[in-house]
């Protein structure tokens, strides 16, 4: 009997493991690690006033709505922060429409979502997610504002001006320079452009991998680079914990160690390496990352005070702690589930880009709750099982906005009527957006 259980479980675990490996592949790490650092940077360094000053009741609609949509990039770096921010913005005086636009667009345009969707599924989906979210988000916001206009005018009259939307803020130029450098690190690590990918020098490693080790690696489906990266992650985690958990109080030597380990991981991920060989391709990507990392380090240390740097590291670490473990678990489970769900079921329901298929994808997003960012590996799993890219986009648009949990919280903030209106609008528009995307793909 143990045999049968084992033979049932092993393929499942193998499926999960393979998914995990794919996920921990160099190109995903190259994107996620910088994305977490950027998220921490935005959260710690860029004050929300940069965007909120454009969201007030006095701002003209052609400014406040786009600001709410695109500002989501600066306001919320992770879908987890969107609901509380939405509550704050609305209650402090922004119009319902403006706040709702932010609520819908936020999960699509925050840096973590963009980076991960792009790396794990594809830039086409990531960009489509952003563009269609913004367009339909502004639409949903305008409709909500129109539907509840009377209530909103009453509410605005009752509210004394909170002063939230009048705050000016001036930012030092170094802030934007470091920000651009960080984005450059992300782009240089992930763009598939000839300048970055053509190998300039091919280095042959002067070491021999013992035969037993290489068979072990091959059996586990790992390249030497992949194995090293996983090793780096395992080393970096405790170093980061020791060095960053109390970084707000003091820096200790583990702080420096963990930063160096992370930079080294990025550099390790940059060169190209093929399975079974010992040839490292030094391409533009490696050189670029090396230069950028050095420059960013120097500029950052030169321009920011210790407390600011500490805040930055704390915010980065906070996001890593909160999201990464769940993500790893989510990817593994998606891999396991993938081998259980029959591909034919997915193909029958959502293989074609029909309105019905898009609606099913949206409804699935509503009823299944996944922690932030986990909807991406789940979406990837559906893609591999045969879901059409149209319904896939519909799912990605609807899932962060419409889990049972987020509906409950939204209802506590907005009340039942407005929540019902919002949920209906999101369902309709997500279905439409996915359908249109699917159509556009067939034309291109």
């Amino acid at each position: 009997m143990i045999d049968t259980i084992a033979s049932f479980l092993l393929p499942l675990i193998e499926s999960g493991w393979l998914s995990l490996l794919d996920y921990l592949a160099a190109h995903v790490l190259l994107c996620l690690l910088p994305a977490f650092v950027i998220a921490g940077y935005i959260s710690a360094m860029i004050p929300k006033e940069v965007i909120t000053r454009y969201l007030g009741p006095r701002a003209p609609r052609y400014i406040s709505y786009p600001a709410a949509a695109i500002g989501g990039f600066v306001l919320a770096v992770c879908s987890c922060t969107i609901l509380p921010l939405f509550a704050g913005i609305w209650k402090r005086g922004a119009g319902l429409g403006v706040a709702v636009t932010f609520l819908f667009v936020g999960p699509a345009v925050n840096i973590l979502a963009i980076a991960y969707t792009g790396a794990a599924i594809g830039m086409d989906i990531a960009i489509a997610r952003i563009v269609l979210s913004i367009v339909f988000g502004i639409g949903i916001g305008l409709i909500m504002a129109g539907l509840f206009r009377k209530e909103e005018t009453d509410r605005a009259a009752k509210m004394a001006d909170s002063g939230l939307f009048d705050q000016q803020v001036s930012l030092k130029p170094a802030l934007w320079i470091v920000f651009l450098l960080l984005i450059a690190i992300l782009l240089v690590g992930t763009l598939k452009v000839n300048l970055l990918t053509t190998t300039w020098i091919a280095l042959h490693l002067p070491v021999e991998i013992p035969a037993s080790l290489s068979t072990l690696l091959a059996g586990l489906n790992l390249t030497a680079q992949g194995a090293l990266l996983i090793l780096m992650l395992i080393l970096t985690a405790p170093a980061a914990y020791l060095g960053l958990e109390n970084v707000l109080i003091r820096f200790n030597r583990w702080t420096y160690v963990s930063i160096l380990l992370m930079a080294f991981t990025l550099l390790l991920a940059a060169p190209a390496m093929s399975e079974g060989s010992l040839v490292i391709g030094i391409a533009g990507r490696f050189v670029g990352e090396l230069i950028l990392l050095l420059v960013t380090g120097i500029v950052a240390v030169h321009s920011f005070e210790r407390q600011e740097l500490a805040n930055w590291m704390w915010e980065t670490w906070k996001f890593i702690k909160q999201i990464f473990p769940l993500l790893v678990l989510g990817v593994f489970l998606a891999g396991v589930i993938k081998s259980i769900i029959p591909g034919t079921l997915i193909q029958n329901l959502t293989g074609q880009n029909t309105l019905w298929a898009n609606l099913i994808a949206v409804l699935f997003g509503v009823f299944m709750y996944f922690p932030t960012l986990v909807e991406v590996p789940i979406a990837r799993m559906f893609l591999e099982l045969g879901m059409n890219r149209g319904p896939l986009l519909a799912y990605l648009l609807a899932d962060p906005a419409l889990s049972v949990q987020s509906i409950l919280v939204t209802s506590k903030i907005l009340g039942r009527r407005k929540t019902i209106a919002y949920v209906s609008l999101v369902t309709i528009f997500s279905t439409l957006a996915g359908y249109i995307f699917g159509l556009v793909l067939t034309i291109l």
Partner: protein
Amino acid sequence: MLKIKVLGVGCANCKKVEEVTRQALTYMSLQAEIIKVTDHAEIMNYSILSTPGLVINEKLVCSGRIPSQTELTTWMADAEMEAE
């Protein structure tokens, strides 16, 4: 005795604010009553955009970020002086 309120619904930053506040209190050898405010409506009373928020003797001193020990000790010293 200082009356301190930590505004937040339990996120990592809110817990951190409580932690650094307690450290500052120990450093200053001050007594304080720390109340955790987790009710959304009550938090909104204090005009903050994003949690966490820190209120000392009913005065909002910090919101949306984690204050440094220097800031905390200054605010606490100010609050003690004003209370006399």
